[in-house]
């Protein structure tokens, strides 16, 4: 493991000032990504600033019905919070279907948004990788790419975004709140995650020292009828091959409200706007659902080993929509 130095902070302002002042420093929250990356030499030595004592781990209902999740709230605590289970089942399910009980006790919501990709070439410090060393090339495109993305890829990077929770949050139009020496800021989550394009090393708009303080999930009554459907190689403790976060309301047989985002198939948590467009106002039938899924996957680009993901994603979308329709999406 890389050598590190360490200090602990207990308030947000000190945390930000400490990290901002030292370009070699980084925040240490749950450590489930950070310690791993340092151990496998995929990140350079750092001065770790332990932020686990910062008072930003609360889960709070706002007056307008939004729920504010502290940046240091742990995955398990968010997943099991009654207000999340009740109002945003897709988020609770996405969290609980991710990682393991131990990792969910450790990992923070802010860290979940910033977790690094699981591409084996990115994580192999000996391999060529544009995300780790810009301009060197992508090993995955001509390599073992069964788990890689089919949407949002570029000739420079095809790594799949690994988060489940972020998929639900993208469907829910969450806001990422962060803080730096200039004050408080917020960015829509769909703008927070960047496509790889020509700069796969840049995954989000945060600058060094910016600290995620909260994730705000706006009120969405339709989300009470929502789910996270995750398809993977084994039943638990595995990343998605394809997943769908979906909320649905059907009125008199017609889709009146829908939110849909995909995981496991794209380089960022993928809001399925094309599918939503097909679905809104259309009859809640398998024919419509299939057409919506096909519209979303029309631009998918398969690699040598992952063409199956396109059909898998289509079926995942259809099954999610049918399940919600049968479950009570009709009003």
């Amino acid at each position: 493991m890389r050598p590190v130095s360490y200090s602990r902070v207990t308030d947000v302002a000190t945390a930000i000032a400490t990290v901002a002042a030292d370009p070699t420093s980084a925040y240490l929250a749950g450590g489930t990504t950070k310690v791993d990356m340092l151990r496998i030499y995929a990140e350079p030595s750092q001065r770790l600033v332990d932020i686990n004592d910062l008072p930003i781990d609360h889960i709070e209902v706002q007056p307008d019905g939004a729920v504010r999740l502290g940046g240091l709230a742990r995955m398990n605590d968010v997943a099991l919070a009654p207000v999340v289970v009740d109002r945003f089942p897709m988020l609770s399910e996405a969290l609980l279907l991710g990682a393991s009980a131990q990792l969910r006790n450790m990992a923070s919501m802010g860290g979940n948004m910033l977790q690094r990709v699981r591409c084996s070439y990115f994580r192999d410090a000996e391999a060529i990788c544009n995300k780790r060393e810009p301009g060197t090339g992508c090993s995955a495109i001509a390599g073992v790419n069964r788990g890689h993305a089919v949407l949002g890829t570029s000739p420079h990077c095809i790594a799949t975004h690994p988060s489940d929770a972020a998929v639900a949050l993208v469907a829910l139009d969450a806001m990422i709140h962060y803080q730096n020496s200039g004050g408080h800021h917020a960015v829509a989550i769909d703008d927070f995650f960047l496509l790889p394009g020509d700069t796969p090393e840049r995954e989000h708009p945060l600058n060094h020292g910016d600290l995620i303080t909260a994730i705000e999930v706006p009120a969405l009554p339709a989300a009470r009828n929502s789910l996270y459907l995750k398809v993977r190689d084994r039943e638990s403790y595995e990343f998605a091959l394809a997943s769908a976060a979906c909320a649905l309301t059907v009125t008199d047989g017609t889709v009146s409200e829908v939110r849909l985002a995909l995981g496991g198939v794209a380089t960022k948590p993928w809001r399925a706007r094309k599918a939503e467009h097909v679905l809104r106002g259309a009859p809640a039938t398998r024919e419509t659902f299939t057409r919506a899924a096909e519209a979303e996957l029309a631009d998918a680009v398969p690699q040598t080993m992952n063409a199956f993901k396109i059909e898998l994603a289509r079926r995942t979308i259809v099954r999610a929509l049918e399940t919600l329709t049968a479950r009570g999406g009709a009003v």
Partner: protein
Amino acid sequence: MVASHLPDAVQGPGRVDVVLNVNGATHVVRIEPRVSLLDCLRDHMNLTGAKKGCNQGACGACTVWVDKRRVVACLTLAIACEGREVTTIEGMTENGSLHAMQKAFLSEDAFQCGYCTPGQIMSAVALLAEGHAGSDAEISEWMSGNICRCAAYPNIRTAIRDVRDGVGGVGRATG
């Protein structure tokens, strides 16, 4: 914005004194900040119950509790546990006798090679405290972070059910 407090002094990257509370006892170790809680327990405290399987958070053999929550010790830095309460399998005995879950693992033959067992037991006891042992499916899901290459899973579930239902000692090994 002005920082309201000075940060604690920077420690490392060389060795520093770290004070840890493990199983109710205070230990002082001299380690680099990069040392994981797992390596600290095994190599610096002679507490070798927690096992190193994958060393990347994938197998659960190193499961311990920090402030009563189960975590993987391989992805936890020892220095980050200063001021927190660490519990390992060595701390599970009660007045010199095995914990009910340890007895149940023995009586139900809930292991073969035994390498994953300390982690399984630390997860299993936490599982009951969390209230996630309602059904076999729920036990399987909430124990999925503990891999057993001998595939003793059915017996592990039985041991957990025994303790949940207070029927320890009725397993095949003693029956």
